């Protein structure tokens, strides 16, 4: 059974703070993703990684960076948090294969930036 865990369920930060969101998966998946979910906008891809130390920008990378030093861990970093980054952040992982590729999601981190 795939498990994707996120370091915090709820987080409150102040504008300008540096924020780290951690994600760990235990199924040796190559691919890992960070999304944010906002009402009326669905899930939007921030960054993804298909291998250790590899990263690719998603659709909305501005204001974010990522780190993947180990295969099982993918971190999302908000260098200087802003109020418009208040959102639900979802991490996902998947195997790299053409057919029946499925993303497995963590429970999400609800971030409030004051």
């Amino acid at each position: 059974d795939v498990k994707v865990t996120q370091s915090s369920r709820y987080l409150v930060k102040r504008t300008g703070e540096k924020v780290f969101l951690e994600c760990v998966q235990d199924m040796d998946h190559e691919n890992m993703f960070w999304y944010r979910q906002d009402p009326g906008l669905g899930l939007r891809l921030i960054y993804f990684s298909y291998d250790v130390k590899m990263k690719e920008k998603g659709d909305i990378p501005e204001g974010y960076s990522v780190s993947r030093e180990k295969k099982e861990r993918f971190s999302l970093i908000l260098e200087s948090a802003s109020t418009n980054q208040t959102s639900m952040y979802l991490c996902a992982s998947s195997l790299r294969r053409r057919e029946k590729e499925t993303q497995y999601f963590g429970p999400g981190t609800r971030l409030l930036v004051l």
Partner: protein
Amino acid sequence: DQQVKQNSPSLSVQEGRISILNCDYTNSMFDYFLWYKKYPAEGPTFLISISSIKDKNEDGRFTVFLNKSAKHLSLHIVPSQPGDSAVYFCAARSLTSGTYKYIFGTGTRLKVLA
């Protein structure tokens, strides 16, 4: 530019009846489509998928139909149960720079009335 659209933000259905959730897409290069279910305060969970070379896939009470000429995807749930009440996201996969990316719709909130 929303490449994957779910035009109905919400849907209410009586228990035991059919629920039909719709999804439209614009990119003919999408090769794989998925449906996810999301309960409040949880991450999305995979429900069912379909390859672009097929037009139907069935799994228990859930059936996904793909109409490539119309660029339209639908999820049928028969019979609907109160536990099916959740937000449903459709997602489409595309190959970008040698890696797969997923584009999600905005979601449809299904309420199954007992």
